[in-house]
């Protein structure tokens, strides 16, 4: 009886916070509240050319058509990797979902959702990203790039997105000009 309860009792927390996720791929989930209307946030994100403004590893995104884009991403040792990404769901003001093309070195898919925050606090933005590590040796280096600390990567990108949307700029204290220091 108790077994049954534990299996059927619904937990209100998102699956990305599970202690023992029951899946092979790597799931990242992260939510931030941004003090702007969701339509503005959606519009900025939907113009994919804006993404490198807050995604540090993304060097460039070439928009090929309404759904298809080509991503150039920094890899270790000064290398870059490229793949095509396809928008598979698009609900203006609410949601964008994408997945990499089948020939990508590292299969990835994700979605960004925009919901009105309760009590007028702006918009709750949730990013969910799924990485599927490659089976063979090919692309191992690239996989490493994503698997090292993918959570850290995702939360930094969301933080920068929030900074840019709320303040108009990305906070920085990079030496030497933003923050001089002695050698």
């Amino acid at each position: 009886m108790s077994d049954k309860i534990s299996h059927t009792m619904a937990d209100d927390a998102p699956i990305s916070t599970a202690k023992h996720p029951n899946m092979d791929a790597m799931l990242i989930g992260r939510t931030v509240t941004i003090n702007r209307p969701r339509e503005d946030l959606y519009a900025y994100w939907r113009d994919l050319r804006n993404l490198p403004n807050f995604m540090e590893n993304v060097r460039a995104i070439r928009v090929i058509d309404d759904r298809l884009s080509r991503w150039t991403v920094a890899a270790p040792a000064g290398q870059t990797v490229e793949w095509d990404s396809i928008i598979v769901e698009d609900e203006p003001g609410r949601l964008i979902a994408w997945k990499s093309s089948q020939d990508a070195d590292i299969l990835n898919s994700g979605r960004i959702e925009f919901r009105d925050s309760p009590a007028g606090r702006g918009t709750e933005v949730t990013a969910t990203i799924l990485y599927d590590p490659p089976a063979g040796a090919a692309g191992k280096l690239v996989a490493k790039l994503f698997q090292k600390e993918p959570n850290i990567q995702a939360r930094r990108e969301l933080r920068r997105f929030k900074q840019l949307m709320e303040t108009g700029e990305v906070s920085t204290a990079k030496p030497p000009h933003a923050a001089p220091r002695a050698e």
Partner: protein
Amino acid sequence: MRALTWHGKQDVRVDSVPDPEIVNPRDAIIKITSTAICGSDLHLYDGYIPTMKSGDILGHEFMGEVVEVGRGNEKLAKGDRVVVPFVIACGHCFFCEKQQFAACDNSNPAETADMSEILYGYPMTGAFGYSHLTGGYAGGQAEYVRVPYSDVGPIVIPDGLEDEKVLFLSDILPTGWMAAVNCDIEPGDTVAVWGCGPVGLFAIQSAFVLGASRVIAIDHYPRRLELAKQLGAEVVNYQEVRVHEALVEMTGGIGPDACIDAVGLESHGMSIDNVLDLAKAKVGLATDRPAALRQVIVACRKGGRVSIPGVYGGMADKFPIGALMEKGLTIKSGQTHVQKFMPQLLEMIGGGKLDTTFLISHRLPLEKAPEGYKMFKEQQNEVTKVVLKPH
């Protein structure tokens, strides 16, 4: 330019470093005319705050003249004289809109915000010259400083108010003020203040302005107790008397209604708990030495208020959680929401209601800043506040 930089425990030097530049639209560059050494700088000096890197420019109490503004800054103009808050706040996030500027969600860069998120559960705000936990921003003990989000923080000072009257708006005056505000003072209240350094002294002044009937100040340096007395406080020298018994007796057995810990993590004193804390800190087993805070919590009256402006950074041993819970104390704490309090405090200074110049004991050129640190550390009786003049 020249700047005071940190190189290790009790090793600060004046070095030549690159000039700061405008990098974001809302930035400004300030030419520093006056900057002070803060008691909390001594925590950095003594190596108690993690995530310092050799070469970091220190200093978070400063003011000066605007010499350059970014294209997105419509508030400041070249030539403005400004005092700059030590906490950096964006002005637009949920926290800034609630005037909880010291909780700004955006000013700590994304890369450094991770550390405080791990330590404290959420990313903390950015601050000048105070380790990489708060963003790694260069401080103001320098000839020039870059001020991010400068259309939110800096307050323009009217002509006729000289630097030394307004410099402390950057940190210690609002910090002492917020410490007293956090006491929720009611008529008839007695407020006890541990630590008569600059923040403690300003908390005494502020408590009276906010309606306290009595203030009792606790320290052991004669000069500091004398200054507390001049501000109207009754004084207790903890090296001479049993503090708890004294407070009980002086308040008719009720106890102080509100207590302020203006000491923080490097508490002095030779109580057994403090000696143990010191020993642990020396061998790297602990960071904070909360001897004053323990006494504060035990001394506060039942149902009273505890205010903690003193800086803590890590964990504390033997925290009197029983006294806190059983007596039903309310604790308020935090880094100061400087931006919130600056305008009203500037008005009080202008109107002669608050004077902070009595505190300054030493004035030095920037080149002598390392001596200033040493003096402030070693001669806490005579050296109450050191102001540096970089130009």
